[in-house]
């Protein structure tokens, strides 16, 4: 079945560690790609998005993601995490069908 997969369900890091969260999708054709973040007690908000152009996308709070078309991947990275990055992160894809499809989510816990 077509889907969006986030391989890491729960990640625990120490402050200043580097972060990479994997996201793979199985849709062909043109896709729009997103990472959303949900901080504890807050609503879901957009972290970054890719529609076209430069496959390396920079978002808010020092996050970036790289679209690798040949690998159907859109991994999220941050060179040095902070305690305030503790949150749940969702990868999402809009395939040619037009409906936003979310991955299962990754809970990131950053230890101070």
């Amino acid at each position, binding site marked *: 079945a077509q889907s*969006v997969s*986030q391989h890491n*369900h729960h990640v625990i890091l120490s402050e200043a560690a580097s972060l990479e969260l994997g996201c793979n999708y199985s849709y062909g054709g043109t896709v*729009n790609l*997103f990472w*959303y973040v949900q901080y504890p007690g*807050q*609503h*879901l*908000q*957009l972290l970054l*998005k890719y*529609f076209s152009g430069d496959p390396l996308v920079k978002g808010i709070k020092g996050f970036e993601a790289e679209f690798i078309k040949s690998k159907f991947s859109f991994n999220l990275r941050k060179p040095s995490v902070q305690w305030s990055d503790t949150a749940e992160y*969702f990868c*999402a894809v*809009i395939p040619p069908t*037009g*409906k*936003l*499809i*979310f*991955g*299962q*989510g990754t809970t990131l816990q950053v230890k101070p």
Partner: protein
Amino acid sequence: DVKVTQSSRYLVKRTGEKVFLECVQDMDHENMFWYRQDPGLGLRLIYFSYDVKMKEKGDIPEGYSVSREKKERFSLILESASTNQTSMYLCASSSWPYYEQYFGPGTRLTVT
């Protein structure tokens, strides 16, 4: 800033009750969406609407209906609540189906 509001943050209902969840957006967006969020499953689309009085089923519409009488308001209705509908319900809106969606704070519904 886009603002999406939901009528309740927390709701407790009994099995068999009819439940209304209301969502209002203030950005004149054409598209509105209802999702449910469950641990380990990410967000799953229940229904969406791309215009007033128009609606389309998402991935899990069973047990739900929707109403969109005005552009800014999108209601989710549980005709006869059941315990398996205990979940976090998120409303979102967007200006175009392929663009990023803006989310409300969510309603945590418990059906006892």
